[in-house]
């Protein structure tokens, strides 16, 4: 009851005209930032910090503005995934897999609306999770030592086989490529540079944003250049139909169980520091595929394949606020930026935040609810507007996409070196696509590679070289079991499915080709 009282106070704080306006502006700017390739939620929030400072906002209004941007970006990332097959930010990567095939099949409107609803469901219930469970959830985070984290990341890679329907060896190759790229830079556990070839620019490692923008956005431009004027040139075809904008109730209903499961899963992934929204959307997708993909429709435009990662990554975004507020430990890049903002505003997140600054916490939580409703209200009517993008001929659209990618990366890194690397990734992405090597594992590898290695080494170092520590707790053993089952099961039952897959090969989505 006290909880509801607190929440009510929060709404009293949040519901001023100024705050509502800030939330609206944040949601709008966030959606744009999320949709533009190269600008993810973390950079979006960071870029808008000066705005909050210049406007001279107090603690609560600043937080309302910036968390609206955060949630908005999480919503926005899906738009370019679905329409262009280019993820607007890294958690939206998985939405490409079924979202783009849906758009190609003339169901872009439905895909956008459905993913908007899924985002809302994920974010809404995650916010409730934050309200009700934050103190208890902190204890879950404390169960995860280095060995458990290593098992968790291994689990993510073990389920990789499930997402790409192509040659499993190629998935493994792609993952190893991504992991290999992640190793570049100064090794934190010994302080020595690795594989940098003396290039100072590489000391901090390769920013995964550069990899994702190069691999997805620029390679898409190259694909268009390759196909121009041939029979596979889609620029001469009539524009893709947008389809109905409001999804039918039966479609939404069929996705409800999916949304429910992935919200829970994504939320837990978000609560664990270091896992974050990308892992949330990834695990959500691969688990759903394992669970409900009886007819092998995932990857070919299955609406559940759109709902799963979107509910998952938005729930993870909410979950990531738990360790940030309750422990002062950022669970993701974006929450790291938000944490810095809190500190700058004279608020110390940590175990005492809920008692010391209740107005800030509850005002923020109320703002999250408000932002969520606003985002849903804003996103559904705007579906029609977004889909107009498909009416722009590719010969104009693709250069714009390419230039935006450059601007986004240049704005955060400030030097041409990163841009050259991005062009390199673009070429690599084009070659990999030709060879049927999936791109998602490459990104997953660059995203999680460091955390995976570092936790492995921390665990062994703490135990003074005793490798058995990796399976030293019930939780670790449980995670390993799931990982092994997830890896072995498809191989055991694989033969039967493979035959069916070959028949479906022709209809495969563009992302896996």
């Amino acid at each position, binding site marked *: 009851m006290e909880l509801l009282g607190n929440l009510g106070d929060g709404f009293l704080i949040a519901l001023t005209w100024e705050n509502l306006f800030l939330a609206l502006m944040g949601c709008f700017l966030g959606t744009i930032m999320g949709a533009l390739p190269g600008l993810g939620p973390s950079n979006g929030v960071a870029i808008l910090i000066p705005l909050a400072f210049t406007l001279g906002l107090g603690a609560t209004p600043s937080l309302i503005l910036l968390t609206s941007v955060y949630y908005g970006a999480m919503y926005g990332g899906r738009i370019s995934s679905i329409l262009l097959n280019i993820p607007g930010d890294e958690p939206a990567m998985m939405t490409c897999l079924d979202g783009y095939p849906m758009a190609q099949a003339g169901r872009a409107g439905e895909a956008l609306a459905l993913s908007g609803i899924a985002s809302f469901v994920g974010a809404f219930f995650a916010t409730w999770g934050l309200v009700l469970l934050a103190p208890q959830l902190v204890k879950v985070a404390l169960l995860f030592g280095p060995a458990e984290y290593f098992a968790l990341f291994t689990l993510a890679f073990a389920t990789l086989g499930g997402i790409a329907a192509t040659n499993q*060896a190629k998935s493994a190759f792609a993952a190893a490529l991504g992991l290999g790229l992640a190793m570049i830079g100064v090794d934190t556990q010994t*302080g020595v540079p690795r594989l940098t070839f003396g290039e100072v620019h590489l000391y901090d490692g390769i920013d995964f944003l550069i990899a994702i923008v190069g691999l997805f956005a620029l390679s898409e431009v190259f694909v268009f250049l390759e196909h121009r004027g041939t029979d596979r040139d889609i620029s001469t075809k009539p524009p893709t139909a947008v389809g109905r904008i409001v999804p039918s109730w039966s479609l939404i209903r069929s996705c409800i169980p999916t949304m429910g499961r992935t919200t829970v899963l994504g939320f837990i992934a978000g609560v664990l520091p270091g896992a974050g929204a990308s892992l949330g959307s990834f695990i959500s997708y691969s688990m759903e595929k394992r669970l409900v993909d009886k007819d092998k429709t995932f990857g070919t435009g299955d609406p559940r394949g759109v709902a799963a990662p979107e509910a998952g990554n938005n729930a993870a975004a909410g979950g990531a606020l738990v360790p940030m507020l309750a422990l002062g430990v950022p669970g993701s890049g974006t929450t790291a930026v938000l944490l810095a903002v809190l500190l700058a505003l004279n608020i110390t997140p940590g175990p005492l935040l809920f008692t010391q600054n209740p107005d800030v916490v509850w005002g923020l939580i109320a703002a999250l609810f408000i932002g969520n409703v606003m985002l849903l209200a804003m996103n559904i009517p705007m579906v029609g507007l977004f889909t107009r993008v498909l009416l722009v001929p590719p010969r104009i659209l693709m250069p714009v996409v390419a230039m935006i990618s450059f601007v986004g990366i240049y704005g955060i890194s400030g030097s041409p070196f990163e841009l050259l690397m991005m062009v390199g990734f673009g070429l690599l992405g084009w070659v990999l696509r030709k060879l049927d090597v999936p791109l998602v594992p490459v990104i997953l590898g660059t995203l999680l590679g460091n955390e995976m290695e570092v936790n492995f080494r921390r665990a062994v170092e703490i135990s003074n070289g005793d490798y058995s520590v990796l399976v030293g707790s019930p939780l670790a053993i449980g995670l390993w079991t799931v990982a092994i089952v997830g890896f072995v099961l498809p191989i055991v039952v694989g033969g039967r499915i493979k035959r069916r897959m070959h028949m479906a090969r022709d209809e495969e989505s563009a992302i896996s080709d």
Partner: protein
Amino acid sequence: MSDRIFGGIGLVLAIIYAWAAAGIQESFLTDEVGPKVFPWIIAVILGLSSVWFLLKPDPDPEWPSWGRIAEIGLAALVLAIYAEALPVFGFLLPTALASAYLTWRLGSRPLESVVIGVLTALGIYLIFRSLLGLSLPREGVELAIDAFFSTIGDLFGNEPAPATAPQGD
């Protein structure tokens, strides 16, 4: 055949990677596992999966003609030059040229391409710099636009503090 070549390249890559990892200089302060083990595991996976499609290749993809490959290479070159030109010539001119080139190669008529290029550059500048305040390279024209907006900003009071990128001098 493509997959066999790819497998071969992958294998060479794995060997080079393992070799490069062996060259990582270890300091006196090393942990139990050390900085080389994980890269080696990765090299093994890279190598094994390469061997796999060396032996069991997929059907060949349809490769474009050499002309098309040159087209892609040239586009990549233009983008690379663009990257280097940004800090020297400011944002608008290189961006207009690069996007004009791309849209021309993707099938716009020459004159149309120039118009599209200029509009793209201006549009992106207004959104990213004037609205979102991202740091972009600025020379003459860009500074004039910024000065214009900062004047408007002062008239209305609040304007996000724009950040700037290194200039050419």
